[in-house]
């Protein structure tokens, strides 16, 4: 196999890598935003619950979560769709990302400051509306650089999926090693691909967020 076809063999795994990362990122977002606002604006029992969630999901190695969801929940308990390795992996990463993004957004809410909430309430906006129209748009701007790093983290962690046989970038790299007996090129190639997938977007989001913050005086 010439290097070019080797590279293209690995590249066929990129869509799956992206699918795992993007889906888990979006589930993390859907979990993280509500958790952050619950943590900041609701009472003590909710704070404790969110903290507990964060501690557990950030404390357990992601590979343990994935195996638990796939073998334990999916295969042993027969719960669909976790009997599919792809979904088990994506969901496990999504849960962990929810914990991370909750922290990112909580920091951003602090950055926006209580004053914006008071100003919104002075107009008669109910808390929920103030959160939607005043707080969330601004927390997104402050959170952008953090969300960029989180996305890069998910791209990298999606590589764990190869252990469960999901045919993504890492798995294809491994197959290549086994079939060509070349233990150098496939790894360099996939390292290069992972850098291309993480670095430009994360850097761009970091720059965009910082610029926007400066522009808006946030």
């Amino acid at each position, binding site marked *: 196999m010439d290097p070019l076809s080797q590279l293209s063999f690995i590249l066929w795994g990129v869509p799956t890598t992206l699918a795992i990362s993007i889906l888990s990122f979006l589930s993390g977002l859907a979990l993280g935003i509500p958790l952050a606002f619950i943590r900041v604006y609701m009472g003590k029992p909710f704070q404790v619950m969110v903290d507990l969630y964060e501690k557990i999901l950030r404390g357990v190695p992601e590979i343990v979560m994935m195996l638990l969801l796939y073998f334990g929940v999916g295969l042993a308990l027969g719960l669909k769709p976790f009997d599919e390795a792809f979904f088990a992996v994506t969901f496990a990463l999504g849960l962990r990302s929810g914990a991370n993004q909750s922290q990112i957004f909580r920091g951003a809410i602090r950055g926006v400051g209580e004053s914006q909430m008071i100003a919104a*309430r002075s107009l*008669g906006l109910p808390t929920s509306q103030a959160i939607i*129209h005043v707080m969330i748009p601004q927390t997104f*701007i402050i959170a952008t650089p953090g969300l960029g790093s989180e996305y890069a983290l998910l791209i990298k962690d999606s590589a764990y999926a190869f252990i469960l046989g999901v045919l993504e970038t890492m798995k294809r790299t491994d197959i290549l090693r086994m079939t060509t007996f070349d233990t150098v090129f496939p790894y360099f190639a996939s390292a290069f691909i992972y850098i291309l997938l993480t670095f430009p977007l994360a850097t761009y989001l970091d720059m965009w967020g910082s610029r926007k913050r400066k522009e808006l*005086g946030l």
Partner: protein
Amino acid sequence: MADTVMECRNLWKIYEKITAVKDVSLEIKEGEIKLLFGPSGSGKSTLARCLALLTTPTKGDVFHRGECLTRPGVNLNKARARIGFVFQHIWLFHHLTALGNVELGLRRVLKLPKKEARERATKALREVKMEEWANHYPAQLSGGQQQRVGIARALAMDPYIIILDEPTSALDPELIGEVTDTLRALAKKGTTMFIISHEMQFAREVADEMIFFNQGMIVEEGPPERFFTKPSSDRAKRFMERLIKRTTKE
């Protein structure tokens, strides 16, 4: 006899360690302008926020147009929509343009259709002479311009009273004039206002009554002329002297 627009009776605000407002009663009639002044830390802002229902008083009642708003079960959001509030540190929404800032309450609280909200917001910006800056973000405006947008944001909601918490004290001296001029124009139109301010020249011109506030209590109240000629309390006298000295030095 003009109607009472806002009133508080025996109002207290007690925090864990300090009592910010002690047994304050006052009322403001339609078209009236009352100006509150006093040393920093005397509880002026807390009083203003209690009157605007942004803070819940510990004891006592607040009435707006005869309706008691400190009873349980009152829809505070509905009440706040008709009480204008202008903040010392302005607190415009950073992510919205001047127009967006003024429109938000019209769209989301009063639920006006887009076109009507835009017209009303534009009119409010025109009133504070900020119409041509409508599409600028707060960070692109000077402090004085930002505060005028802050006033427009309150004004657009068609409030029956505007409460202003030191609207000029966070501004550079050369920017104060444009804000006090805006307020003068509102005063001329008969806008009911409760203003916390230490701009004494401005106070003398617009206020129907001045209230000297110290340590959470009303020390003295009366027409501005009395404060400028012979305040009856010693504390007010000394405070006035210092303020006037500072103003003439500038």
